[in-house]
């Protein structure tokens, strides 16, 4: 049930005319009356068993002597008339003989046959032995032919033809067999008809060469080196010979970034062993056809598309700009000799994703061409999509209808996919180098395994080693074709362009914020008080990006204070200051007379933070806070 079999009527009709585009006009089948007439004229009524009788009659009557018959039934009429005359005469004779007046019919005496028993036995014996010998020779011949068939199944033309028929579309046109390797039944609308010719190959190579040089169409003969015993020869049009593939290169300043090649060879079931050489020839020809159609489509789209930087089509090459200085080059490579193809296909590595996508995109176009939804209820018109059928009764608005008419071309889609691939790689690179460079808070990125060709997702966790439970800054990045969308933990959405620096800056800011927030939660654990904190400190020297963040902490009994300033540039430098109260250097002066003012705290002194023990910023801060707390109690 699952296998769809196409049935086509055999083309028994005579071809009347072949148009320039290859369509064949057939002569219509003759109508019943026409064919009957044709048959009637062919019957020779005079060749019946009553031949002699008629001849005698004809000799006597000069009826047939007048001019050749004008209408097809003339001879039939004449013969019928003759027959009628004969029957009339016969009936006259019979009626006369019944009267027994003028004519009497007497039975003729026949001699009784002699009964000779021995002769009969011999005669029967002889007849039986003759019959037996006929049967025996027949059996012998059958056996011989059976053995012969068993011995050379592979070279049998008809069995090969059967196998060919199982894998390819064939049809009989007058005396020849024409095959079809186009993708037309799958929905392709490519102009090339992709036909090949099937002939019986001669056993002798020399004679075959002679015979194949005669036909007018250019044909490919199977190379004699790989010519085992195949009874079938397939002739493929010259433009489909050889090996073709589509090469996709992403190029940056003349340096290749990645390459992809489409080559359908090796796709599908491996049926080459059991089937003959023709299988390989046809597969490669079909591959050439597919690549040609794909390139043709891409080139047409490249010219039609109105891109800000126009796409360039030169010869067998299409150039499209992905990003500034980064180009996508799609080229069609078609070689007719087998050895050069092999060398060129091995020297570059494949990007299976782009290769697969291009392949898939054209298949999708084919599918859309061939697959139309059926109307429900069944009386509806064929053609409009399901969405369009719903648009009227469900009152679709302008916008929805406009969306329906939009469709992306293959080129647009492949450019988007290439851009996405590039963006993904770039994002990966930025994240990886940052994770390598920034040691203190660790940057962990999780790439989603499931992604679409133009969208992937990465989750970034920023944690400090040993303090994972204290605080974790999470960030989600959607990598699209030209942009990045970053979603912070608080739900803030930031859109970034394709420039890698933007992402880098964003991550650095996130690290900065992570340090401060985790410091605050650490301080809470140690019972320190947060006096103030700011993510965007407006004072201090101008930072290259954003503002420094800062916070002010005070010890549990309030006698010590720590001020932290974190810069958000690449160095992620932290400056830490401490102050002590009551201040030691408080002297009563007339302006500030009371003793209580000594609790205000003194001048902040900078700590040489890099000298503090600890692997990370948080560890150092914990050490610092712990030491300051213990000393006061």
């Amino acid at each position, binding site marked *: 049930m699952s296998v*769809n*079999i*196409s*049935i086509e*009527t055999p083309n028994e009709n005579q071809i009347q005319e072949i148009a320039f585009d290859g369509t064949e006009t057939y002569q219509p089948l003759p109508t019943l009356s026409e064919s009957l007439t044709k048959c009637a004229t062919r019957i020779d009524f005079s060749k019946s068993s009553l031949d002699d009788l008629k001849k005698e009659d004809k000799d006597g009557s000069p009826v047939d002597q007048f001019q050749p018959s004008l209408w097809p039934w003339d001879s039939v009429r004449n013969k019928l008339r003759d027959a009628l005359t004969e029957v009339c005469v016969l009936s006259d004779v019979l009626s006369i003989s019944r009267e027994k007046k003028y004519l009497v019919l007497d039975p003729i005496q026949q001699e009784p046959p002699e009964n000779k028993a021995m002769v009969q036995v011999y005669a029967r014996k002889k007849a039986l032995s003759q019959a037996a010998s006929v049967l025996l020779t027949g059996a012998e011949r059958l056996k011989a032919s059976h053995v012969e068939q068993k011995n050379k199944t592979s070279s049998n033309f008809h069995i090969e033809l059967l196998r060919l028929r199982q894998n390819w579309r064939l049809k009989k046109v007058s005396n020849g067999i024409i095959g079809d390797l186009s993708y037309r*039944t799958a929905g392709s609308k490519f102009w090339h008809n992709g036909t090949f010719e099937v002939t019986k190959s001669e056993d002798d190579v020399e004679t075959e060469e002679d015979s194949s040089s005669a036909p007018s169409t250019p044909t490919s003969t199977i190379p004699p080196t790989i010519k085992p015993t195949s009874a079938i020869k397939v002739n493929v049009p010259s433009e489909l010979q050889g090996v073709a593939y589509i090469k996709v290169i992403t190029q940056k300043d003349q340096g290749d970034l990645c390459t992809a090649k489409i080559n359908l060879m090796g796709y599908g079931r491996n049926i080459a062993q059991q089937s003959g050489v023709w299988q390989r020839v046809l597969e490669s020809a079909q591959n050439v056809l597919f690549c040609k159609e794909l390139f043709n489509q891409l080139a047409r789209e490249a010219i039609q598309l109105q891109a800000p930087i126009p796409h360039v089509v030169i010869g067998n090459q299409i150039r499209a700009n992905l990003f500034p200085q980064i180009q996508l080059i799609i080229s069609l490579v078609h070689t007719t000799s087998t050895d050069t193809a092999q060398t060129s296909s091995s020297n570059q590595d494949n990007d299976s994703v782009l290769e697969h996508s291009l392949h898939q995109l054209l298949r999708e176009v084919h599918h859309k061409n*061939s*697959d*139309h939804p*059926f109307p*429900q*209820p*069944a*009386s*509806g*018109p*064929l053609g409009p999509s399901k969405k369009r*059928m*719903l648009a*009227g*009764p*469900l009152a679709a608005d302008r916008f929805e209808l406009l969306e329906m008419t939009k469709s992306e071309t293959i080129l647009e889609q492949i450019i988007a996919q290439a851009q996405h691939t590039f963006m993904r790689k770039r994002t990966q690179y930025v994240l990886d180098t940052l994770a390598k460079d920034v040691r203190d808070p660790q940057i962990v990125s999780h790439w989603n395994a499931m992604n679409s060709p133009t969208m992937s997702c990465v989750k970034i966790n920023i944690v400090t080693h040993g303090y994972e439970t204290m605080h974790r800054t999470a960030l989600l990045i959607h990598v699209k074709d030209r942009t990045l969308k970053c979603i912070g933990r608080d739900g803030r959405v930031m859109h970034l362009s394709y420039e890698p620096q933007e992402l880098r800056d964003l991550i650095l800011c996130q690290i900065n914020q992570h340090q401060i927030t985790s410091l605050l939660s650490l301080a809470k654990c140690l019972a320190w008080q947060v006096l103030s904190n700011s993510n965007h400190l407006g004072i201090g020297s101008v930072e290259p990006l954003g503002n420094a963040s800062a916070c002010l902490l005070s010890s549990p009994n309030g006698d010590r204070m720590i001020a932290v300033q974190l810069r958000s540039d690449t160095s992620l430098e932290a400056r830490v200051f401490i102050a002590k109260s009551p201040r030691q250097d408080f002297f009563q002066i007339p302006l500030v007379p009371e003793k209580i003012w000594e609790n205000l705290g003194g001048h902040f002194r900078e700590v040489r933070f890099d000298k503090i023990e600890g692997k990370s910023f948080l560890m150092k801060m914990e050490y610092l806070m712990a030491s300051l707390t213990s000393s006061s109690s």
Partner: protein
Amino acid sequence: MSGIPSTQDLLTQACNNKIIPNQEYLLQGSILDSASDHLFQRLKGLCDNVESGPQLFNDHELCLSLRAPNQAQPLMLRVRRSLEVDAPYQLRYIGQPEFGDRTRPTLVRSSIDVGCTATVIEFLTELGCKIDYEYFSKGYMFRKGRMKITMSKILKVGKGDEALSQSQLVELSVLAPTGQDAIGEEMKAFAEQLKPLVQLEKIDYKRLGSTLP
């Protein structure tokens, strides 16, 4: 201000440009249930491949007529809905069939198909339409290029699945804009390939009606 043409203008424009498919080319025939499987297999082979296999349908059709006081011929309307899927109702006007002479391969009739909401039945009955008859039509549809082929069983309404006859209705139809008569030949050629299982012909209902009673 007048940036948007009114819908009426668009419609007349569409009519003039002949882009509205309002002509139905039709051939009909029937096949006995016992032989219908052969036809099904043949259609499956001949028609365009569809991944999901032959499309099943199960529709309910109502035939309504609007009788004008001063006109002899009532206006016939059909409302059809799918019992299988949630799709819009279909309101259909079918004009008088034209047979033409013997050279014309198919029957041609004007047809207006309008998808609409489920309120259509109430709308039409309130407008003065009378329900003449109704039936269920259940079967398969196939597609070959522009041609649609349906083979369906006609079932009575309200009596379970009681069939109207021991045979199935086979229809070959194309909906096309006015003036595309070439499609008729294409249909004729396809109908030829279904012979002798089913004989698809131009069927004249009026003649059927006159011989039966």
